[in-house]
């Protein structure tokens, strides 16, 4: 019966600039149902959500085909406001929180509780005073509904991502009329414990009758909470099934369209040893809010793949950012016996090191520029490559032919899904943007590559490709790679050694074959004597 459905998508189609990204998508969600939507990056999930939420980007690029039926009525989704009024809540992949506002102010953004006063009696509702007390009560209620205790009157800016994600969700469930909650990869930035809490919270919410569309890459999560599963591939629904029929392997297989196999890593001619160290880090301190590094000592062997793991907020991400000069740092970093000046990205880049940032939209890419320019930019800047010959380096012009050649090669090697090398990077999906970042780092032909969270927000297939490419570079070119990742599994898959960071220091270096218990203990700081687990 159609009136029992909260949401029905009928024959949705959408194309951007001639590329079809969605074709005849059908989907329906019942009240209180958790409906998982899985698919590779670039499969069209984000676009589908943008349509559902009436994001301006859809309207600006020519609207969409098909029909959205919400609560039994066909609706034209024209603005986020309309979607909100209908009762659709959205938890975005990128945080939609105002950094300078407190948690409460963010949760209550544009739905503030106000009290009347003489001025508002004359000049209207806009002049009603904010009722901070009741706003805080509501936010605390929403936060505790998620089974958490976060201080509700702290500014969001300095908080770790986990907190932000929960505040974002608290905001959506605080909306009284919310019937459908869309969660766009909510667990992508969370640690496992945080993710577990989120899943619990989702189940609780579903029990209270709120339907949920859950987009994720983590298939075990899908199986843990979803009632029904829809799988998208290349803009089409390729399968949909109830949870009872689903298995991780099967979903993964349908999603990627090819089976995933694990192979042993190829052997090297000469294994890296402590006798041949490429980079030595002594007492590195990095001032990166939320990821402070407080005195890291590390020796990186030439030719190895070194993993850096640890929980969010303990500083693993800060190490690469500090060495590459993106955040204020102190200490000494020596490469091949030469001390590298810190706080100077140019210096770091010109010492044959490259960096793939975890923040690809912020520091990794020039979003408004083309794929090819993004790939060649750093090499042009630092190494004067991809430039036409000329008398003075600063006056030399770009060499479009060489750039195009490299871009085409990389698009093919890394399987970047795009309309061509001149497409704007902003238009690419997350996974493809990440590949452009990698291509840019490769262009430097570095001896040492720092890669931070290379697979964050990337689907299974692309993940494999990225990891394979890293292994390939390491084995064929002998490039040393330092990979920072929140996903222990992938570190264990390709790394030779894994350094675990705890509270801004290296707690220890483990072999990838070490047991789960060893990794778990070290990440929780159990090996650090006298340092109990502190709770804020």
């Amino acid at each position, binding site marked *: 019966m159609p009136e029992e459905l909260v949401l029905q998508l009928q024959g949705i189609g959408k194309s951007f600039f001639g590329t079809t990204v969605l074709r005849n998508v059908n989907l329906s969600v019942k009240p209180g149902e958790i409906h998982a939507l899985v698919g590779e990056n670039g499969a069209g999930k984000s676009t589908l959500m943008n349509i559902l939420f009436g994001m301006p980007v859809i309207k600006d690029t020519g609207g969409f085909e098909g029909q959205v039926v919400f609560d039994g009525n066909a609706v034209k989704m024209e603005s986020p406001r309309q979607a909100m009024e209908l009762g659709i809540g959205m938890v975005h992949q990128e945080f939609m929180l105002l950094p300078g506002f407190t948690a409460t102010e963010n949760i209550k*953004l*544009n739905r503030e509780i106000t009290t009347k006063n003489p001025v508002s009696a004359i000049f209207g509702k806009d002049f009603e005073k*904010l009722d901070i007390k009741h706003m805080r009560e509501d936010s605390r209620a929403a936060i505790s509904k998620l089974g958490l205790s976060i201080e509700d009157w702290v500014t969001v800016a300095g908080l*770790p991502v*986990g907190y932000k994600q*929960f505040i974002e969700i608290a905001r959506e469930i605080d909306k009284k009329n919310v019937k459908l909650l869309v969660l766009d990869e909510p667990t992508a930035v969370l640690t496992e414990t945080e993710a577990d809490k989120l899943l619990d919270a989702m189940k609780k919410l579903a029990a209270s009758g709120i339907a949920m569309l859950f987009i994720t890459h983590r298939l075990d999560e899908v199986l843990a909470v979803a009632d029904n599963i829809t799988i998208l591939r290349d803009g089409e629904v390729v399968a949909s099934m109830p949870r009872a029929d689903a298995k991780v392997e099967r979903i993964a297989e349908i999603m990627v369209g090819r089976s995933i196999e694990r192979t042993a890593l190829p052997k090297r001619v000469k294994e890296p040893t402590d006798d041949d160290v490429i980079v030595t880090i002594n007492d590195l301190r990095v001032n990166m809010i939320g990821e*402070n590094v*407080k005195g890291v000592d590390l020796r990186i062997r030439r030719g190895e793949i070194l993993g850096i793991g640890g929980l969010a*907020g303990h500083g693993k991400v800060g190490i690469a950012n500090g060495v590459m000069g993106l955040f204020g740092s102190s200490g000494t970093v020596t490469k091949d016996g030469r001390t590298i000046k810190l706080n100077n990205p140019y210096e770091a880049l010109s010492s044959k090191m490259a960096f793939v940032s975890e923040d690809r939209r912020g520091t990794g890419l020039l979003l408004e520029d083309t794929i090819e320019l993004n790939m060649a930019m750093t090499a042009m800047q630092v190494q004067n490559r991809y430039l036409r010959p000329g008398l003075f380096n600063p006056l030399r012009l770009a060499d479009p032919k060489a750039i195009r050649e490299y871009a085409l090669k990389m698009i093919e090697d890394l399987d970047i899904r795009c309309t061509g090398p001149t497409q704007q990077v902003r238009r690419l999906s997350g996974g493809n943007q990440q590949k452009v970042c990698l291509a840019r780092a490769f262009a430097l032909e570095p001896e040492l590559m720092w890669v931070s969270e290379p697979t964050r927000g990337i689907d299974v297939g692309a993940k494999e490709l990225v990891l394979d490419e890293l292994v390939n570079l390491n084995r064929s070119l002998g490039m040393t790679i330092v990979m920072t990742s929140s996903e222990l599994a992938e570190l264990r898959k390709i790394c030779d050694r894994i350094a675990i960071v705890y509270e801004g220091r290296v707690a220890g270096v483990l072999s990838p074959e070490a047991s789960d218990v060893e990794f778990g203990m070290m990440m929780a700081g159990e090996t650090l004597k006298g340092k109990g687990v502190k709770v804020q």
Partner: protein
Amino acid sequence: MVGNRLETVPSQRKQGKLSGIFAQFGVPIFFTVLCVASIIVSDLDINYLIGELLSRLGRNLFIVLSLLIPVTAGIGLNFGIVVGAMSGQIALIIITFLQLKGLLGFVTAMAVSVPISVLFGYIVGSIFNKAKGREMITGMIMGFFANGVYQLLFLMLIGTLIPVNMNSPVAQQIMLSNGVGLRNTIDLSNIYYSLDNVFAKLFNWNGIIWTDSLGPWRVPLGAFFMSLLLCILITFLMKTKLGQNFRAIGQDMAIAEVSGIKVDKVRITAVIYSTVLAAWGQLIFLQNLGSLNTFNAHEQVGMFSVAALLVGGASVKRANIWNAIAGVLLFHTLFVVSPLAGQKLFGEPQIGEWFRQLISYSVIAVALAMHAIQNRKR
């Protein structure tokens, strides 16, 4: 990790307190030192300085305060207040033609300026919405453009398209003798000091309770009262829904839009407020001066107000009432003192004046550069 808490952040960054204070109040501290030094060098009579400052504070504070709302709303320093100042002057010219006097004249001018400045504010705000992220330069250029229109109106159209009875005594006083265009200077003795000494006039029962002089100084109580009222209004506004909207769009327009705040509308509202307040601020300024420099009085308003606010320690993103007050005091102390200091040090008042200009413009330049740098960091 324990219980229902999320992982703790390994202790947050703690900065040295002193350097934090300097980062925030560096500019005002620098200017205070400069002012004190200039006062010592110029050997100025302190009574004279205080008198000057009181009158200048009353004269200028209101218009500087009119900059606060756009800063909060993320529009930056609204150089478009020049347009507001012009609407104030248009209202003044109208009441001069109507020969309204005293407080009645002043209040009428305030009332007349409202529809004019609301209209102009709407136009400026709409253009700002088309030029998001470049509001400051847009506002500045719009001020120049509006100046052209203003000159067209009062040099060409008045007396031709707008008929003026040249036989009336008012017209003979303020129109050019050939009957087209206004004179360069218009005498405002009709409303001279009409606001500043309003208390002394209205409540002077026994000549004791209300007076506009305090010891040796003449205090523009009326203007102070208006500024105080505006401070209260702004403080109140920031605690309302509208104020929250201003703050929200000031941080991130995209996020505010997604939360359903009508960003463009709120931005226009902010600019309209600013423009109306600037019009009133210009009226307060001119009733204190007593004469209107028809074609130039508004020209420097934007620059000076912005400079004063920045000198008070504000930035493009953050400004409050105290920045405005401190800024007006410091900026105008330099105004008064620097020519004298130049005279004493170099025997040439122009050098002091040059020095003051150099410093105030470099403050603007530095503030804008800092803003650009901070933006890029993010």
